[in-house]
């Protein structure tokens, strides 16, 4: 069966899916999106301005609580070696960043990028009254709330709501089947993408072919039975909106993946594959501002050394491949990647060769646009709060900096109030 024309596709979106009372969910971006698709189909592939020029943020979540002290190691501090007789990294193997701090030996490629001036290591990032629950702390990081307040929407969701109204739903793309809480928004935006090969609605069936062209449902099946609405159908409308966003984005993503084959020399890890896809989508000019990628396994309560080393190795290999690929593309200067974790770990190692939940930790920032070097000040290892580090940088200052200096939107509109910006951009 021939693929339906874009004309019928547009009509389909207007009539079959969104007919009647649900038409209010029709977002303003649709016409623009389809204008771009029409142009693409005509062979000119005119990209919207945002797709080719705008700054891009890649968030890399390290789930489980990455041990900051064994990532950026205060090797010159005796207190570090005293607190970690079993799992401490010996001074001689540390990759030195300066005369008191250095990277874990399994981060050589990142160390090299740092040396070449492409990375910032921001020390001591946390927040007041730290929570040591994975879930609550991750929620605090993802919603940028105070520790004692619950914020329903994510910080990136609020960025979409406030600053990206009416844009393509793919303004945010999360790699993986689920959306991060950071994306949750009053009006849902963003696409979750697990496998681009499978991100297609199945083509139509006999019913669709039999039906007259005017009501042709070329998407196979999305919400083809739209009708009235009642007040208790909130979940219904949510699903309907996701279906619509998926339909729009899947066209574009399949087209990009077809036109821009995977490049670069990435490791086979999940993280490597995810970053490779991010790079493909960037190369293809997706109008995406924010990509969200994650890697888990950092909850190292026991026998930490081997596991942590392996995870850092995965991170190191994937970041190096991503950087090299973006530089080849010529996009490295407009991409900024940052890593974060819900908390660092306790200074003192535990009885099982691991570490329990802690507080402040360093973040990595990588990209052509960062002001490189070691930023922030490392928390003291002796002036502790219940055995944990006292943060020196509030993570919301990091977000404010990204919003104001990188995405160039007013930070207080997203974060609810002003946070001082930092000098890493």
């Amino acid at each position, binding site marked *: 069966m021939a693929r339906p024309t874009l004309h019928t596709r547009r009509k389909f979106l207007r009539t079959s899916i969104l007919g009647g009372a649900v038409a209010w969910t029709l977002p303003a971006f649709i016409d623009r999106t389809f204008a771009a698709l029409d142009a693409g189909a005509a062979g000119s592939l005119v990209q919207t301005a945002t797709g080719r020029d705008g700054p891009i943020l890649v968030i890399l979540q390290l789930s489980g609580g990455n041990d900051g002290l064994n990532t950026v190691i205060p090797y010159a501090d005796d207190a570090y070696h005293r607190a970690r007789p079993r799992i401490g990294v010996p001074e001689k193997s540390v990759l030195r960043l300066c005369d008191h701090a250095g990277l874990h030996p399994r981060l050589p490629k990142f160390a090299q990028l740092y040396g070449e001036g492409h990375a910032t290591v921001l020390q001591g990032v946390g927040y007041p009254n730290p929570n040591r629950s*994975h879930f609550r702390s991750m929620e605090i990081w993802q919603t940028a709330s105070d520790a004692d307040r619950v914020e329903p929407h994510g910080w990136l969701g609020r960025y979409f709501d406030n600053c990206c109204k009416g844009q393509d739903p793919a303004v945010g793309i999360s790699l993986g*089947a*689920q959306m991060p809480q950071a994306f949750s928004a009053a009006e849902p935006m963003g696409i979750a993408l697990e496998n681009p090969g*499978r991100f297609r609605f199945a*083509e139509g069936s*006999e019913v669709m072919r039999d*039906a007259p062209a005017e009501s042709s449902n070329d998407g196979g099946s999305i919400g083809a039975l739209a009708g009235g609405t009642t007040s208790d159908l909130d979940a219904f409308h949510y699903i309907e909106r*996701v279906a619509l966003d998926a339909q729009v984005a899947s066209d574009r993503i399949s087209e990009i993946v077809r036109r821009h084959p995977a490049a670069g020399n990435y490791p086979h890890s999940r993280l490597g594959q995810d970053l490779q896809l991010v790079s493909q989508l960037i190369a293809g000019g997706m109008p995406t501002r924010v990509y969200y990628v994650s890697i888990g396994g950092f909850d190292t309560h026991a026998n930490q050394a081997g596991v942590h080393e392996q995870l850092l190795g995965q991170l190191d290999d994937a970041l190096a491949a991503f950087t090299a690929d973006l530089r080849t593309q010529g996009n490295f200067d407009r991409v900024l990647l940052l890593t974060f974790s819900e908390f660092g770990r306790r200074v003192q190692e535990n009885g099982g060769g691991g570490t329990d939940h802690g507080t402040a930790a360093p973040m990595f920032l990588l990209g052509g646009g960062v002001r490189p070097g070691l930023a922030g000040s490392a928390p003291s290892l002796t002036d502790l709060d219940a055995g944990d580090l006292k943060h020196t940088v509030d993570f919301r200052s990091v977000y404010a900096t990204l919003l104001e200096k990188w995405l160039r939107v007013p930070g207080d509109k997203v974060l609810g109030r002003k946070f001082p910006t930092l000098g890493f951009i």
Partner: protein
Amino acid sequence: MLAPLPPNDWSLDHAAHLLNRAGFGGTPEQVRAFHSLGLDAAVGLLLSARDNRLAPPAWTNDPGSLRRQAMMMMPAGNSGDSGPDADRRREAIRDAMREEREHIVELRRWWLERMRSGGQPLVEKMTLFWHGHFATSVVKVRSAWAMWRQNQTLRENALGSFRSMLQAMARDPAMIRWLDLNRSKAGAPNENFARELMELFTLGIGHYTEDDIKQSARAFTGHTVSPATQEFFFARRAHDYGEKRFMGRSGRFDGDGIIDIILDQPQCARFIAGRLWEFFAYENPEPGLLDAAAFTLHGSNYQIAPLLGSMFRSSAFYSKRAVRTHIKSPVEWLVQTCVDLETGLPASPALDIALEQLGQALFQPPNVRGWEGGRSWISSSTLVLRYNLAGYLVGATDPAARRLFNRRLVAPVDIAKLAPASLREQPQALADALVFRLFGATRSALLRTRAMACVADAAQPISDTKARSIFQRLMSTPDYQLS
């Protein structure tokens, strides 16, 4: 006391709703039979039904697998990394790991078949609830046998005493490994279990202090797993017999002592009642309703069945807030779809791939908090897959799904039974039959209108292929994601 539904209100739609939520749905015949019992007897049947005819995989009784277990648990690479012995050992470990993966696949199918067969729907649904509540993943536990043991423990205590359940979980080999109890000893307690016990299993965040965590972690020291039997073992030498201060009390508490103090907190009853209400009925229950449910649970000394009985008989359970507002989890969606289509579960590996891609691989929750549920089940990625899988399961022409899965892996659907010839010439009657089968709704004018529009789209006569397509369209809708 939750206000009960007036017996005369009990309708076919209510019966379908109860079967969907307390079990995994039912065919039109099953819903009619269930409805004819009346509300009280229907709930009684759910609470009392037991059916253990479907036996677990044979290896669950195989002591040989325990030896392999023990071997895998040994730290690798300590004794001589080269030579024929080390090679043989490495090969044996590889074999054992492959076998473990196969066992987990068998275990998943066994459990899903139990859900699908409907012999004890509420017990299996509650086992699924507890699996999400005490969420333990084979990725860290690395033992199919231990996961099976835990699954059986969850099933045995599913409707019984929550106190017994907690005591059993603190002694469960999979849980002990999952939350590092086996690495916790006097003088160096590991806080992982103690923290999640209060945060996720009993009280909820904000109802304990960091010091409560540290003190109770000491009380659970000594809970470990015997390498020889893979069973729970209390290591006296590792236990901290000293005095602990916990939630305002002092004493030489052991783990059970801590559990008793936690259960004394009214917050615990409130927390568990809330979790159950959200799982079975709807999110954010009214405070008065939650008070009543918590009162029932506390008053029955934490027996689960009486609370479920009063929930399923309550009018709130059948209110507008409850009916057709729940987003089916992938397991609910898949099992219920097979029930709706009166077909078997897909063969492996289609079954495993589907659930993994939809975001709910059994025995492999993403973390100790379990699956988030609700809207997080639906993303652009999982929704596309649900729509495509629906077409695949009903046997509609469906190239995209064919690329995903081998067609031979799907059980055939008897379309002549699902859409009988006698109905195909009467569009409204066919639409009504489909709405009852797929949505359990006879009274929803909205759903009937939508289905009618879909049936009317297909020109007469309606062939088997068209009938399959109509099913596909009805199932590839937001409505079908809800129950």
